[in-house]
């Protein structure tokens, strides 16, 4: 008789928590790094880029361990597929942070001062959306009834993100002194940042189905 399954449970719960912590941490690093970039502090930006890269790597390791554990220990067989998908989706958000950092690092877009506030706001909403997604995920594992409140917040941040993105793109293309190529370059970044909240929303759409499937 295996009495270690209690330990196994607490082990896997800690792993999931750790993984979600990495996603939250990556959001905070990402937000700070964008601010540093906009300030022109490239040295700190690079440091944060590397920290985020490390967080993403740790996240990948945890994800693989979790997948292995769920399958080999045949835990939560009825929701295993859903949980694996959820963890992979969260990992995609982590990847998106990393991708955005490298994109900034490689392409070094010239963002005009007048767009800085909107740009920071856009990043802020994206990170908030992801953070609410993390909370919804934790609720899914801990207290499924409270998950919907966090999911509502994701939708709220996604809408705010859409509004800022539209405003920002309009402002970019209204500037007559910028070349079209410059405008399109900044627009690309705006879209890339906006996608963070969109992806967070996609994750909670799927999460809502997993919750319905687990409904008692």
């Amino acid at each position, binding site marked *: 008789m295996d009495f270690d*399954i*209690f330990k196994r*449970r*607490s082990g*896997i*719960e800690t792993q999931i928590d750790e993984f979600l912590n990495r996603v939250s941490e990556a959001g905070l690093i990402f937000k700070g790094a964008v601010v540093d970039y906009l300030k022109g502090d490239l040295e700190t930006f690079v440091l944060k880029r590397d920290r985020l890269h490390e967080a993403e790597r740790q996240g990948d390791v945890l994800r693989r361990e979790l997948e292995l554990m769920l399958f080999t220990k*045949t*835990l*939560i*067989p*009825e*929701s295993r597929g859903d949980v694996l998908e959820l963890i992979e989706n969260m990992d995609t958000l982590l990847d998106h942070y990393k991708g955005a950092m490298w994109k900034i690092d490689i392409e070094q877009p010239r963002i005009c001062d007048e767009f800085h506030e909107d740009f920071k706001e856009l990043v802020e909403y994206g990170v908030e959306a992801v953070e609410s997604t993390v909370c919804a995920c934790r609720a*899914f*594992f*801990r*207290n*499924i*009834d409270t998950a919907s409140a966090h999911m509502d917040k994701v939708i709220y941040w996604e809408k705010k993100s859409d509004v800022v993105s539209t405003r920002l793109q309009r402002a970019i293309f209204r500037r007559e002194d910028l070349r079209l190529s410059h405008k399109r370059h900044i627009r690309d970044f705006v879209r890339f940042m906006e996608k963070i909240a969109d992806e967070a929303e996609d994750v909670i759409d799927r999460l809502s189905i997993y919750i319905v499937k*687990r409904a*008692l």
Partner: protein
Amino acid sequence: MFLFFLSSGLFLGWSLGANDAANVFGTAVGSQMISFKRAAVLCGVFVILGAVISGAGTSDTIGKLGTVNAMAGAFIVALAAAVSVYLMTVLGYPVSTSQGIIGAIIGWNLFTGTLIDYTSLTKIVSSWIACPILAAIFSMILYKLVVFCIKTFKIRMFKLDTLTRYGLIIVGIFGAYSLGANNIANVMGVFVPVSPFRDISFMGIFSLTSAQQLFLIGGITIAIGVITYSKRVMMTVGTGIMKISPVSAFVAVWAHSIVLFLFASQGLEHFLISHGLPSIPLVPVSSSQAIVGAVIGIGLLKGGKGIRWKTVGGISVGWVVTPLLAALISFISLFFFQNVFQQQTYKPVEYIVSAAAIERIENQGIPTDKLKGMLGNKYSSAFQFNKALKERLSLRLDDTSFIMESTEYHKMEITGAAIRFLDSKWFTEEQIKALEKLDGQVFIHTWMMDEALAGISPSWRIKKDDRLFSRRLKEKIDRIHDLFHTR
């Protein structure tokens, strides 16, 4: 020879293990909550324990429906049940040995001309209707309770997973025990009256009655059925027929086990009787019916949309067809066995219209004018006697039963040598002394001896207000009827 005849019962036990174990552990194994190995070991062990410890209750009911009094008859009855269950299983219907064995006994009754005890039959058939309904009610209540606990204590997903695993193991063990206790009568019940085994005492620590030895053998074959063949059925039940969550599976198995236990527990019956409460009949019910009822209960609680009523209808038809099929197979096989293989499939029970019997019937207030015309007549079967009665009299069912009971020819001679065979721990000193007073007397009807004993000592009198005492006394009376029986 007995072991050869027992083989059909062993086959029936094996098929019970292969099929019905899936009702207990199928959902857990199918949904990978418990490994098959662990499920098979737990199921096997607890089926055996349930059969040996608590198997006696339902066997009595089977015995009342028809005492298959010859080994070859018991062989055919068990074989007919096993074949019909096997055929229905091949067709994909989740049937139980309960339905098979009852049908097969009725086939034996019809073949031998024994009158069917409609009181017992009604009790059994109504329990088949009550069983899924009760299971559905229990599963609804338990499901509500479980959901309330999960929500109140905010149980996390992984903790719930762990608790469900333990829960499935515990209710599975309970279910296996109840299955053994309730269904062993299906497998071995018909062999109890013809068993050549004697009671065995193990160094005075515990003893096994002849019936318990049979139940042990039956329990072992059920366990072998579980280990050798139930995996496929478990996987089918767990993944195919019922796609339900582990929590629902836990509740369904729990409800199923409670129902099986209720219909098998002599302890509970004694408790209810001793507190003056109405008792639950001890009847072998179908574990398939119980599990299907429990799942429907949960389905109804969730709005009923997920229930495939067409499948439920098909299953219900299977429940009706199985006893009919078993009766038919039993009847035809008995005919062949008796006439082609020249095997005695039953010991004829004769009826004689004696003066004493007429007097007893008259005292009961039943008109005996036409019966007196039959004085001294002997009939070779219940069917013939019943036919003769019907030609002359129009009687109520109760009166017919009373006349049959009063006229059944069962010659007994009380001898000192036979009295010494009685277990002095079971029979009281007063009861044995009363028997000794009748030493040398001969009775042609069982009731004559019963009345003679009751006249000598109150220890042989049925107490209408003490059902427990009366039931135990009835067991002793049955024992002495067999012991002093002469041909």
